[in-house]
């Protein structure tokens, strides 16, 4: 995808502000799901599916499910705005680096 949509930018801004990540990668995968039955009737440019990979010290000693819940809370507005699915990888920084 050449341009970042408003939801992409909101995700990037909020995760950066709240988690101060050492690594952050966001991939808009909406175009991969545009033909699915559940996406019928939607504009193909709508941002509906994202993959988010976050590395942050905020996740140290936090159980995985709580890391995911934290990201869902941070992105609650975006989910309400129409993000249909969020694939999450959330890890603390590798202690070896």
């Amino acid at each position, binding site marked *: 995808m050449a341009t970042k949509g408003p939801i992409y930018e909101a995700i990037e801004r909020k995760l950066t502000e709240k988690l101060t990540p050492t690594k952050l990668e966001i991939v808009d995968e909406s175009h991969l799901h545009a033909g699915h039955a559940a*996406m019928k*009737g939607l504009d193909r440019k709508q941002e*509906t599916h994202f993959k988010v990979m976050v590395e942050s010290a905020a996740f140290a000693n936090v159980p*995985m499910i709580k890391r995911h*819940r934290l990201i*869902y809370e941070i992105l609650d507005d975006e989910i309400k705005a129409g993000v249909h*699915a969020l694939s999450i*990888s959330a890890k603390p920084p590798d202690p070896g680096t």
Partner: protein
Amino acid sequence: MQPLSACLTAASIFKLAFVVLSCMAAIADAFSLSLPAHSSSLRQRSPSRALRRHTSALYESLLDSAPSPPEADQLDEATRERIAALVRENPVLVFMKGTPEQPQCGFSNTMMQVLQVCGVQRFKAVDVLSDERIRQGIKVYSEWPTIPQLYVNGEFLGGSDTAVEMYSSGELQELLEVAQAS
């Protein structure tokens, strides 16, 4: 002087009549303000069938697309008890889109693959696409906005991402072994 006083009297009468008529017009105006709302609702009844059809189609497409926010009012007591009973009675429980044989979503398919690779013999799969109250209710119950959702031994373990990570770490297999033995 009589004609003059008569004129004055007539003028007074006209003036009074003018004032009364103005008041009546003002009252009529005030009364008529309430009519458009009523008449517009009357007007809306005739074209509403087409509007309803269009709105219905749009609503259906939105229903399938965007997940509803987990609001407290989307989980009534009866649904909460149904979900609680499912969690209580099934050591391995998945809320998914579609069925294990025909998942209707990539993430639900991934969940099925993980359970299969873990060698799970018995598990309960609930197709949320067939029950809108369950579909929205589990988002409130689990405090988790997406589907699929996995419960093992009454404990919520998240969605397909967490299932894959826990499988990679070996943690999922341990939990499933305990659940299958129960």
